[in-house]
């Protein structure tokens, strides 16, 4: 992997932005799945 391409995170200031977004996305999915389960149980 070449370093010349840069390692700057796209769309966010740094990579932490991406990591936090992914965690929030996972939490949201679990909440949605929970509501889905409750709705049809």
């Amino acid at each position, binding site marked *: *992997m*070449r*370093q*010349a*391409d*840069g*390692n*700057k*995170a*796209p769309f966010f200031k740094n*990579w932490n932005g*991406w*990591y936090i977004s*992914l*965690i929030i*996305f*996972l939490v949201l*999915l*679990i909440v949605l*799945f*929970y509501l*889905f*389960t409750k*709705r*049809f*149980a």
Partner: protein
Amino acid sequence: MSQVDWIVLVGTLLCIISYGLYKSRTTRNLDGYFLSNRSLPWGLVLLSIMGTQASAITFLSAPGQAYTDGMRFVQYYFGLPLAMIVICIFFVPIFSRLKVYTAYEYLENRFDSKTRTLTSFLFLLQRGLSTGISVFAPSIILSSLFGWNIYYTNILMGGLLIIYTMSGGAKAVAYTQQLQMIIIFTGMFLAAYMVVNMLPDNVSFTDALEVSGKMGKLNVITTGFENGKFNWSDQYNLFSGLIGGFFLALSYFGTDQSQVGRYLTAKSLKQSRMGLLMNGFVKVPMQFGILLIGVLVFSFYQFNKAPIFFNDVQLKKLESSVYKDSLAIATAQYETITALKQKAVVDYSAASDINDKDAKAASMSILEGLQKQSDSLRKSVKGWLASKEVGGDNNDTNYIFLRFVVDNLPIGLVGLLIAIIFLASWGSIAAAINSLASCTMIDFHRRFTKRKETGEQEYKLSKKYTLAWGIFCIIVAMFTYNVGNSLIEAVNVLGSLFYGVILGVFLVAFIFKNIKSGHVVFWGAVLAEILVLTVFILTKVGIFKMGFLWLNPIGAFGVIIFSLILNKIIPKKIALN
């Protein structure tokens, strides 16, 4: 299969092989052959990672799993996004900085050669065997369904992909996986559309979900707690998925060369990270979608006649056994129950339309009772199949979706979905063979050969190793047929027996900078492996119950704890010698 289906199937497979060969041109050295000259963008890396993880069984077994056990299997993937983050923070920058070909190469830099050799050897052993099983598992299903010869099916399943994998290495693997994933997603989407379309006119999509939900098939989130106590033997729940699934994904994506080899092909650290993070975003929704197809198939069979057992070959065996009369009675009862279920579902749907809560509850109560009866009949059939008089596979989960496809989908789509089984297999097998060849070449051949070889010679040798591993996997698949289906389950557990320990070695390497001795981590790994095997044996003999996913954290923490203890008690002079 009809002629049109055959044309679609053969055409799709030929298209993939031709595309793989077309994309085969690469630099004739190890960088070109195993890492595609570290030139791929993140989109390609993402599809390659997904194509490597998703085998044929993913697309066959998951809908069947949802049909029988509901959607809770999706929780198995909850730890994956978290693992992607940890890999992006700790693993990828180190692999990138050291410009390694294999993950295990790093362990020699960090500890010593024997730690590298041990982990690489464990990888070759486990991946070589499990890839053989990956060839066999879809072959036996197709062979049972269509009466194809299992040996020829194994050769088709494991042999054709060798042509482009050997010719083009990592680049051909990545480009074909891209095309394979596009075809797979298209086919699965069409299948989902067709199931919804085949529901009766007076039954809406929501009604179908309501019925499946009431039958316990939409149990996406389960906690694993029963009567206030956590059930450790429950395989799939929120906690085992988040914790056990996290360690499994961390070891698979962080330390298994078949995956590491995919993101090492990225043109920069940024592209590797983006590929992995995007995998974290799409994997859980994708798996949810595949499981939902299984639930829709379940809904479909509430309105249509379902086979009492989905593997015809086994059913025919039962028909000629001592259980033939019992089977005839059970089948007749099953058909009667199916007819009653169809009526109950239509009643439920009608009550739902006019929002008559009492009528809805009454229909649902009847439906639940009938479902219990049909489950009980299926259980009896499985029991007879497992008896000494019949023997063989009594699990039809992997056959449910394909049986539905063959019996109900229109001409052309059947061929496409059979092609998907091949493509999904090829994607994961090609990546596995490529990684087996890279470990053999880099971790063993290069280190132990005394001859000085040019880039061209190494390239040619790598192609031979690719061919050799391809043949090895087909041979394993052939032997698997003789050993029986129990081996498939054994190999699935095999991953969890070793993955945790290998991950533990990497975690010690990344996190515990004060541990410098190869002896310490080597013996820490050996002790942790003994611990994992002991726990596994104790669960097998029934001393306590625990799902296999938990073996991953036990192995990983075992290595860390034993290494920390050994680092304290072994004198530094001995440890560093």
